[in-house]
């Protein structure tokens, strides 16, 4: 019940040299997202950052995780300090960054979990030009395996592509988890989308709390009984159960 209004969001950011010309725009977009989401007082937000570059010999930094924090200023500082460097060939260790976000960050058990992928180059092995690992990323991950990992961890990936080269791969990565892809010029649309998502997820907190209370006191209450006690409609209760159940809030 305590986590009913929690949102965990991780930025997974490409910090290779090719990002040099984009990094400031990307940082601005990420900070704008944080500011937009932080406006919602009812949501307890925590932020994490993962930066990724590439596998050796292209680069020595494959990925680096900055743990979740509820201090939004600290998170903004982390983002502002990201420095582009190295990278080697065209494609980068995108899969490693995403998998690190899924596995190494400490997600709160019942939080709504989002990842914002920001980059200008596709992952290895998806047909990107100048790929030192054309047969696949050395980590062994694929688009399918990464989306499966994210789905299992209940994480939705949204992607912000800084060049057209990532439209296909980032699009598949995001859609495969129920998220969306946005071109760099659509930064505002991405923010609007996230705000809509927040509204859907956290827009009926009083109703959701009441529903959870009723369910926790008597698990045998069916949809009809819940609808009657909440003076609501059956479809509204059924949808709320799906939404809360997806975050494990209804687990026995």
């Amino acid at each position, binding site marked *: 019940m305590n986590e009913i209004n929690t949102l965990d969001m991780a930025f997974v950011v490409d910090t290779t040299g090719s990002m040099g010309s984009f990094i400031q725009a990307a940082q601005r977009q990420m900070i704008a997202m944080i500011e937009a989401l932080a406006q919602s007082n009812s949501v307890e937000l925590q932020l994490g950052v993962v930066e990724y570059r590439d596998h050796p010999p292209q680069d020595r930094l494959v990925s680096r995780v900055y743990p979740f924090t509820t201090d939004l200023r600290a998170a903004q500082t982390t983002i502002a300090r990201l420095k582009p460097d190295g990278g080697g060939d065209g494609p980068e260790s995108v899969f490693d960054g995403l998998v690190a976000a899924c596995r190494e960050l400490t997600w709160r058990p019942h939080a709504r979990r989002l990842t914002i992928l920001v980059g200008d180059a596709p992952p290895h092995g998806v047909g990107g030009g100048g790929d030192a690992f054309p047969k696949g990323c050395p980590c062994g991950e694929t688009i*399918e395996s990464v989306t*499966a990992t994210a*789905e299992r961890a*209940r994480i939705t990936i949204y992607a912000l592509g800084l060049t057209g080269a990532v439209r296909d791969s980032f699009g598949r990565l995001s*859609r495969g988890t129920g998220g969306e892809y946005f071109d760099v010029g659509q930064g505002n649309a991405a923010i609007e989308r996230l705000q809509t998502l927040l509204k859907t997820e956290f827009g009926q907190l009083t109703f959701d709390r009441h529903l959870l209370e009723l369910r926790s006191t008597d698990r045998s209450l069916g949809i009809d009984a819940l609808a009657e006690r909440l003076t609501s*409609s*059956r479809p509204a209760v059924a949808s709320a159960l799906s939404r809360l*159940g*997806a975050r494990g809030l*209804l687990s026995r």
Partner: protein
Amino acid sequence: MTERDLRLGVLNTLLTTPHRDLTHLHPLHQELCQADPLFYVHLAAWYARRGEVRDHKEMFIITLCLSACEGHREVGLALLRALPPYQVVRVVDFIKGRIIKVPARKGEQSASEPRREGLFRNLPRSLRTEVERYLREREAEPRKLDGAILHARKAIKRLYALLHIRPSARAQAILFDEEPPADSSLHALRLMARCTTPEEQAKAIVAHRIPYRVAATIVKAMTPEVVRALIEVMSPQELINNLGSLKERGALDDPAVQQAVQGKLEAAKKDERVAAFKTRVAVEAAGLSGQLAEQLEEVTEARIKARGQITRPTALLIDKSGSMYEAIDVGRQIGAMISSLCRETLWTYVFDEKATPVQVPEPSLAGWENALSEVYPGGATSCGCGLEMLARAGQRVEQIILVTDENENVAPFFQEAFTAYEEKMRTRPDVIVVKVGQCSDKLEKTCQALGFQASAFDFKGDYYALTNLIPLLTQPSLQDLLIEIMEQPLPARKAVLV
């Protein structure tokens, strides 16, 4: 491509395209009309009778009226004549084109940019003539004209003005001079506004059949007596559409009103004009519960049942993986819709990486809501595991409905599982993909690679359009549906000016 394949493609596109926006539908209909003009005109006549989506009905008429193919215009004009006035205006407006200005909302500093909608073309002379006949037909019967004006004053006035059609003396007096004749319903409406007691107003509502929308603005008080009078003159669909507003006014608390509502809803079950899913939307929009919600649900079920029977063994596979926040809701609706039509068992599974059978004790929405109440989105996506379970259980089906975003990421994948199912069960089921959420087109491509075409229904939150799935499922085969459409007689234009 054979003629049959082409027609199946046309039908598939029509039945699987949701509505909402005429501008987006127009190119699609043009394409369908050009691809097979003969089939298209029969499809228009069939859809006018069997279809439920208003926008498609209008777009058929627009396309036929502008078509150069022989006989198309005649059919389009005949269909136009059967539309209510507000839809006739929509057809005319779309062809002539409109610039729509949306005023600034509360809190917004400026209005959004004006939007151009429509074709900005000259109206064909024959269409203008048909609209004139449409209006003259109503003018010929004063009661019919009064009724039409009461329900759609703005639309009718617009038709006269926009097409420069001279109104009859009665229409002129009512619409333009604001001096309705003493024997007209509009005059009665004025008198009703002056009535001092709710009893008098209730009598006037019934005597002159004043519609709810109009009466609600002038009645002194929504007493139970007035509400009962309003319900008496409402069509069942009107009542369903206005339940939310009646509830807000507290009108549904009175036992006598409740009885009147129940009577009307009983009538709705048999009324062909009642759109099945509008009742369901009304329940949600008005937050209705209890007996009234149940009765509305019965109306939905009765209207769905009236649309046919599914005689082919069918499977429903609902994706509940982590990305599928919406799919379970859609699955509930589709399950409730088609299980009441199924003569044979509907095999249902929810799946993520593994498939789980779903037992639904009663084929109603409540039954489906309860059956899926503990199913939550989560896990990776295997679009083949449901098929594997069907094969393992020896469940032979002729059609499979998959509610999914098609983003499969773990084995068994659809292609291998479908091939294995086909080999084991010695049948090739039709595949209908209801696309939900952020979808790909992977399954359609897979079916193409396997040598057949899947029907793909792009669900965009539009529950009304789900009934479009019914014709796909109720025919013994798609070929039979094609035959039914081609046998649909074409309507003839009323030749004589009334």
